[in-house]
């Protein structure tokens, strides 16, 4: 089965929660497949958003394109509803903010119906997230 990016609204992904909501820069912008559009945080950290997939998928690669994010943690849930999250990726420091490099080289393997991106701290008052990706295949059930 070919791997696709499940963090795309065109693949059925939906934003179920975001802690900041500037209507000019909504969280949906991280899932529209474009790096030009972005979500902004508007205040105190931590900040987070949750993306839901149309079904349980097997993820092999996760990437995020963002600016000024200092520490980030990613959690997953396999529940039908966005509850029962457990940590799957934590990176203390993000070094290459200009690259789509976050965890991009690591080969991962986990199932998820939801991914939760928690920005624990930033290098500034505000950060932007332009795009997230979660490559994987649909689970055979």
């Amino acid at each position, binding site marked *: 089965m070919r791997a696709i990016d499940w963090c795309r609204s065109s693949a059925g992904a939906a934003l179920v929660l975001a802690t*900041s909501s500037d209507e*000019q820069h909504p969280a949906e912008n991280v899932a529209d497949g474009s*790096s030009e559009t972005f979500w902004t945080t508007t*205040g105190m*950290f931590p900040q987070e958003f949750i993306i839901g997939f149309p079904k349980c998928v097997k993820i092999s690669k996760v990437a995020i394109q963002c600016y000024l994010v200092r520490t980030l943690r990613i959690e997953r849930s396999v529940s039908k509803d966005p509850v029962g999250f457990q940590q799957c990726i934590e990176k203390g420091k993000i070094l290459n903010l200009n690259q789509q490099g976050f965890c991009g080289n690591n080969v991962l393997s986990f199932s998820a119906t939801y991914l939760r991106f928690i920005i624990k701290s930033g290098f500034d*008052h505000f950060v932007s997230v332009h795009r997230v990706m979660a490559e994987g295949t649909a689970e055979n059930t």
Partner: protein
Amino acid sequence: SCQVCPKCCARDPTVGKSALAQMFRNDGAHFQKNYTLVSVQQAQTEFFIFDSAGKDLFSEMLEKLWEQPNVLCLVYDVTNEQSFNNCAKWLEKLRAQAVGVHIPGVLVGNKTDLIGRRVVEQKQAQEWAEKHGLEYCEMSVKEMKNFEAPFHILAKSFHQLYKEKVETFHSLA
């Protein structure tokens, strides 16, 4: 909507900053809240207020509380020179903790109702504030005069900072 996390602080334990924080967040309500809302140019700014007592200047708790502050509200008592002089220490402490990040701030002279007892002149305080990149205003919490001013000033500065940052994100995208 912006979420702001200002630190209200003053060294002297009687300058009136708790009185200010209470007045501002309670809107006359009887329950205590830790936050309040201010509107600037249609954008709502949410304040989470941390009231740091004077004795906290050297406490380790402060460092935790002061992690990533968004804005600063420095309150002094216009009838107490020491409280004004101590503002420099507070400012220095904050700036040392937030290297590389601009923290908008306002210096606030309180107790302007005590006209005969005033020892810190407005001009002197205003000049000091300007020199240190702070806005300035005066109020009397007791007479409920101008007590919203610091929050409006901070909300405006923070919103401006947000707009500038969004421009940067656009240019990087």
